[in-house]
């Protein structure tokens, strides 16, 4: 494969897909490399009510299918593979994949984030046996059972609401005395009869013989530990960036998020960043999509200046 793409985009979530759309609409040749599922994290949530225009069919998988189809319609190419590293040179950059290599003039890193673990004993052992990080994947199993949701942000409260469609009872355990989630979502959760909330409390341990049977809860103020029987534990305690493979290539902050400027430029020439993997304050589908659009536009300008590419 000796084709040289104008833009190689790493990650097929909302950031990568909109970068692809903008790049291909500008008549740049573009390819998106995705190791897992197209749509990224956004394809794992049914409740996606805050992306403008998605009120009619506010589910993540459907919105992401449309985003992919739109990029495809304008000529973006797609490949299923994992990016393992880069070799940067002035003109042509090499993107190493598990099964090969791609060459491109610019790179957009849009690898997003993954769920943070709770770090409680029992969590690893009981994963897939009642401990979950994906409500749409696993909610079914808990039909008419009881589950605990750990966390207090948007994802935790939204997914708790989603889980009430299946589970008999959903108990949110949060370490503070109020939620970080948006007020409207919190109000919806508070009104839901199937949702209980335990404030100021952390999950100390998850236990069970082969499958989850309960959790040990510790009150953050009094230190008191209590036993709480449950069939499942859904963990939504934040996310961490996926950027290991770019270490030493682009600058990152202490948490491993990639630093980008307003135009999505990283510390490496011709390499841009977009979406959740970037240092920023609001990690959502809309900001990921916006980042992708900006990154592609900046890449386009760079290519025009650098390679004097005549277009149109």
């Amino acid at each position, binding site marked *: 494969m000796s084709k040289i793409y104008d833009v190689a985009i790493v990650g097929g979530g909302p950031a990568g897909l909109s970068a692809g759309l903008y790049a291909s609409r500008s008549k740049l040749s573009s390819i998106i490399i995705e*190791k*897992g599922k197209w749509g990224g994290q956004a394809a794992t949530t049914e409740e996606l009510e805050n992306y403008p225009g998605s009120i009619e069919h506010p589910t993540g*998988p459907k919105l992401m299918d449309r985003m992919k189809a739109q990029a495809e319609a304008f000529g973006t190419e797609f490949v299923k593979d994992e990016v393992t590293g880069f070799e940067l040179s002035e003109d042509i950059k090499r993107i190493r994949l598990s099964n090969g290599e791609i060459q491109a003039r610019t790179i957009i890193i849009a690898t997003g984030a993954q769920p943070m673990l709770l770090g409680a004993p029992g969590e690893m052992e009981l994963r*897939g*046996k009642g401990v979950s990080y994906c409500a749409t994947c696993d909610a079914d199993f808990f039909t008419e059972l009881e589950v605990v949701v750990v966390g207090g942000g948007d994802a935790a409260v939204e997914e708790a609401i989603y889980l009430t469609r299946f589970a008999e009872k959903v108990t949110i355990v949060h370490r503070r005395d109020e939620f970080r989630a948006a007020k409207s979502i919190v109000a919806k959760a508070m009104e839901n009869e199937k949702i209980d909330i335990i404030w100021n409390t952390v999950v100390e341990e998850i236990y069970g013989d082969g499958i989850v049977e309960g959790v040990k809860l510790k009150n953050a103020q009094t230190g008191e530990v209590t036993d709480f029987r449950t069939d499942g534990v859904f963990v939504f305690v934040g996310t961490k960036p996926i950027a290991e493979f770019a270490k030493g290539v682009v600058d990152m902050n202490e948490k491993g998020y990639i630093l980008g400027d307003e135009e999505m430029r990283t510390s490496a020439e011709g390499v841009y960043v977009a979406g959740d993997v970037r240092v920023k304050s609001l990690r959502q589908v809309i900001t990921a999509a916006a980042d992708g659009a900006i990154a592609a536009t900046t890449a386009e300008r760079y290519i025009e200046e650098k390679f004097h590419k005549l277009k149109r």
Partner: protein
Amino acid sequence: MLELNKDNFEAEVLQTEGTVLVDFWGSKCEPCKALMPDVERLAEQYGDKIKICKLNTTDNRRLAISQKVLGLPTFIIYKNGERIKEISGAENCTPDAIEALIKENI
């Protein structure tokens, strides 16, 4: 690839001599569906050495729970009906990890 359900699971997996890999997936599990083409490919590639089957847990919830599967995606290796090894969760169940699981057990 063989589709398992509550009627054939016993015979095809638990009462079977040799090695079986079961792909536990679900209709609403996007990571599972994304993996399916890779699993189909592996089933073709290793089909003569290992029996690779899939089980839709959405339609067979009780059966999945009886196998202590309450999270997707999950892949379990059974040898002569006994469960030997498993991997679970979207981050862990990559095509490479599934292939490694097969290679370790054939």
